[in-house]
């Protein structure tokens, strides 16, 4: 039984308009695309207004009067949109860049480099321990990590007697990266299948009433 809910009708028509791109570019797809743009912008503005209320509530109540500084800096940051007046946003951008850089640097050191290096060292110790599958897994992890790092770091192979061993390790690294891409692409098919299932169910199940 076809749905009588106007929201379901709207979402079904938008979904069909979007799928019409498979047939070719057309006005229906343009309508869907434009509606998407409008909803994204509209939502960000509505969220922005609510967030302003929440973020500057302590300034409004007088609990944190120093928040007048980020309020002024925030208003100035909007001027980045106009090339002629973008200079007004300099200090606001500098604050965001400085704080963001400091935060990311500390995480990159601790998590991305040290924690991962510690994991490689731990796996090296595990090459001779555990079940055969675990041992093979640890061996592959260590070899592939080092080889792929080698591939990234030594982009130019030095000439001389070390050229051959260098290029062998580079080749292993290359195949490690190809394996990463292949497995990742194969695994990602779930995501696209799921989104298509959700969209088609909306049309066939919720709107038309099948299934």
């Amino acid at each position, binding site marked *: 039984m076809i749905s009588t809910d106007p929201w*379901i009708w*709207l979402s079904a028509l938008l979904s069909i308009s*979007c799928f019409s791109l498979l047939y070719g570019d057309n006005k229906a797809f*343009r309508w*869907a695309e*434009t*509606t*998407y*743009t*409008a*909803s*994204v*912008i*509209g939502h*960000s*503005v509505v969220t922005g207004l*609510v*967030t302003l209320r929440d*973020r500057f509530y302590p300034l409004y109540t007088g609990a944190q009067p120093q*928040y007048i500084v*980020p309020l002024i800096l*925030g208003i100035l940051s*909007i001027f*980045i*949109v106009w090339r002629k007046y973008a200079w007004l946003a*300099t200090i606001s*951008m*500098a604050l*965001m*860049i*400085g*704080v963001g*850089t*400091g935060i990311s*640097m*500390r995480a*990159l*050191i601790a*998590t*991305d*480099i040290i924690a991962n*290096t510690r994991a490689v060292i731990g796996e090296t110790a595990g090459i001779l321990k555990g079940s055969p599958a675990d041992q093979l897994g640890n061996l592959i992890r260590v070899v*592939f*990590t080092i080889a*792929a790092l080698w591939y*990234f770091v030594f982009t130019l192979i030095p000439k001389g007697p070390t050229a051959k061993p260098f290029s062998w390790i580079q080749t292993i*690294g290359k195949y*490690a990266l190809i*394996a*990463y891409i*292949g*497995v*990742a692409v*194969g695994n990602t098919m779930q995501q*696209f299948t799921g*989104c*298509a299932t*959700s*969209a088609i169910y*909306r049309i066939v199940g919720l709107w038309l009433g099948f299934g």
Partner: protein
Amino acid sequence: MSATVTYIRTYLAQAVIIVGCLAMLIGYFLVSPEAGRVADELNIWNMNVGTFTLFVGIITIFMRYGRSIINRDPNWLFHLYCLVVIALWVPFGTLTGVYSDLYQTLYLNTKITLHITIIGEMIFFCVSAMYRTFRIKSFRTFVLAFLAALMIVFNAPWLTTPFPQVGDAAYWLLNNPQMAAARAMVICGGIGGIILGIRILLGLEKGALRITGG
């Protein structure tokens, strides 16, 4: 005079970057209550300034689409429709409340539906792309195509149900060869990120300040 102002602005911006960055690092790595307080306050200021980035989109879109409507560019009617929808959406959302059930229904049935459909369309493009591009002409392409097809099949319920070991094999592939290469990228990305941070601290990297002339 303007050269002096530019000079002061440039060095003031650099000083703000250094103070912000060092406050975050010192506040975390060293036990200093004063540095911690400065870091916390700057963090909250950063969050509050970041709120205003949500309004950049509407200004840009009105400028761009407004120009297109005035000049009657191609698709100007769609641009007008877009601006009208935004002009209706914002008061509607503000009056009903962004976390209300009514707003949630509108949002789910428009933006989210469209976005999910756009991503879902990718499966069709992926399926035809895999037919055309996964052609095995060398050992490299064989490895790529074989592992991709293997992963698709190893996640399939028609294989994992009679042979549960296949599901374990899928996780083994994900957690061993695939993870190792991803880890190399993470480590290299981390090194690159730190170098970029040091360059920003030293003023060698302008980034977003380039557009502000800072």
